[in-house]
């Protein structure tokens, strides 16, 4: 009896009540995430269409067929291109802005830098749509009035892709900059002081102290950003709707076009599932670094 009181947690009634708190969350996630995920995998093996009652099992047909489809291959290429280039740019510019914020200790600047991330991206992207408009946009106005030529920003495949990368980068930079800033603040000042006494200049300090110590943060933020960018829908949807002539399609927009507008749910599900292997690999890498039991949750 004495022992029982000492370890109240082993009391079965209390133990049970601990689990009760999990039920709403678990039940909801099983119904609204677990089940749809399984359904997506099932649908991808069928010829399911909107309006048709009984889908037929077609095995790997959708996947094999997609790999022969030039629009799909363009979408896959674009998704990877946009992700690699914009994550790289976000990382480089993010470090630059983080350094600036670190040295320029004004709260208002941090607030401003965060804005594109805080304001839902749909609305910020609308601003870009206007800036990039080939006819009325201010970017071309500036080009014409200063250099005498204009650029078909959203109208030609190369420039449309450039625009998508530009806007993706703009939108993602705050997350990188503020995340890196957090990492920089966490580096103890004495290390810099010691290096300074040893005659190290600020470029040295950055290269041999800041960057190595920041590596885990850079890695984790970049991985997060890869997940968000490769599956992104809104930038391409708002800027180009996948055009001109499918040249900026990505997984998300093509899934929408094929699975909903085109009513081919099975094929659409197969397109979206191409992201899954990427996600699984990234999630496994991240889990080695992300541990909720550590302080702050993300270190």
């Amino acid at each position: 009896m004495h022992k029982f009181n000492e370890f109240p947690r082993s009391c079965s009634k209390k133990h049970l009540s601990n689990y009760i708190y999990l039920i709403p969350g678990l039940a909801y996630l099983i119904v609204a995430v677990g089940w749809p995920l399984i359904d997506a995998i099932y649908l991808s093996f069928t010829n399911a269409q909107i309006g048709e009652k009984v889908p037929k099992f077609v095995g790997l047909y959708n996947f094999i067929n997609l790999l022969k489809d030039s629009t799909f291959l363009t979408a896959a290429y674009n998704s990877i291109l946009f992700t690699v280039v914009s994550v790289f740019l976000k990382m480089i510019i993010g470090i630059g802005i983080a350094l600036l914020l670190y040295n320029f200790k004004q709260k208002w600047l941090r607030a401003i830098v965060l804005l594109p991330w805080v304001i839902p991206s749909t609305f910020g992207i609308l601003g870009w749509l206007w800036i990039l408009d080939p006819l009325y946009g201010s970017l071309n106005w500036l080009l014409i009035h200063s250099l005498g030529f204009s650029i078909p920003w959203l109208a030609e495949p190369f420039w449309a892709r450039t625009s998508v990368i530009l806007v993706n980068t703009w939108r993602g930079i705050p997350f990188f900059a503020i995340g890196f800033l957090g990492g920089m603040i966490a580096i103890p000042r004495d290390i810099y002081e010691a290096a300074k006494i040893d005659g190290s200049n600020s470029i040295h300090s950055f290269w041999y102290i800041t960057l190595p110590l920041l590596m885990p943060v850079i890695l984790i933020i970049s991985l997060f950003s890869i997940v968000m960018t490769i599956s992104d829908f809104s930038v391409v949807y708002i800027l180009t709707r996948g055009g001109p002539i499918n040249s900026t399609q990505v997984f998300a927009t093509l899934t929408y076009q094929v699975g909903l507008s085109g009513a081919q749910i099975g094929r659409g599900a197969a397109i979206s599932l191409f992201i899954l292997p990427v996600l699984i690999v990234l999630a496994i890498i991240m889990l080695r670094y992300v541990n909720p039991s550590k302080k702050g949750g993300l270190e």
Partner: protein
Amino acid sequence: MVLHKTDRINNLYRNKVIQYALVMIVVIWTLYPFYSMFVASMKNVGELYNLEANPFWINKPTLSNFIYLFTQTNYLKWYINSSIVGISTVLISTIISLLFAYSVAVLRTKGGLALGVMIFMVYLIPQTLLFLPLNSLVNSLGISDSLWSLIFTYPTFQIPFSTWLLIGYFQNIPKEMIEAARVDGASTIQILRKIVIPISSPILITVMLFSFVLSWGDLIYALVFISSSTRETLGVGTVTQLIRGDSFFWGPLMAGGLLAAIPVVILFSFFLDQYVSGITSGSVK
């Protein structure tokens, strides 16, 4: 090499100038899209489509675009819809997340770590992967083309995010505090109400804000599940009703985007410190 005093002062001065120049560039780069929206939203049709007119300045400010929004479109309705969905999903997902994180991180329920990992994995599942099967689910539940479809689905991205944030915070509550309350005979629900919630109010506010913004900014679910103009939310309403095919209603479109961003900016300015400290501690998104 020893620098002369004047050289050092010159260097210091030069560095300051470079720093301010960089700050200027960052500020322009960040804010220009919003400024550009503001300019377009206050211009009348003639000025907006005049290729010679300065795109950085408004000659004759007008509110006609805003008036158009509220009289010629369902903008007000979208605003109300977004608010209804935002407030209700924030309440639902915060309560569910609070209970879940409490069990995992405060009560340290067996298997909690595995559940934490599971939550993190769910957080990584993008909407792109879910919207097709969720559309089928929403259809079979008979809630498609209603706000219920959004209230039902938005917690799929709010709960993992909120729970993850709360678990991180709850880990830092001293064990002794909870143990002491238990020894005094407090039930788990009492511990939650009397201890955990009061000391967690900063993180709860942060979680609710973020969840609200996530809901406010959703485009894809609303685009997929909603088909009637009067049931649309701000994001999908502005993007689909003010851009029709190849014709852009630029003035109202920019006014609509700008007005939609305002509540978020206001919330943000009130809770700036929470935001910045939440993120710089490395625990957010």
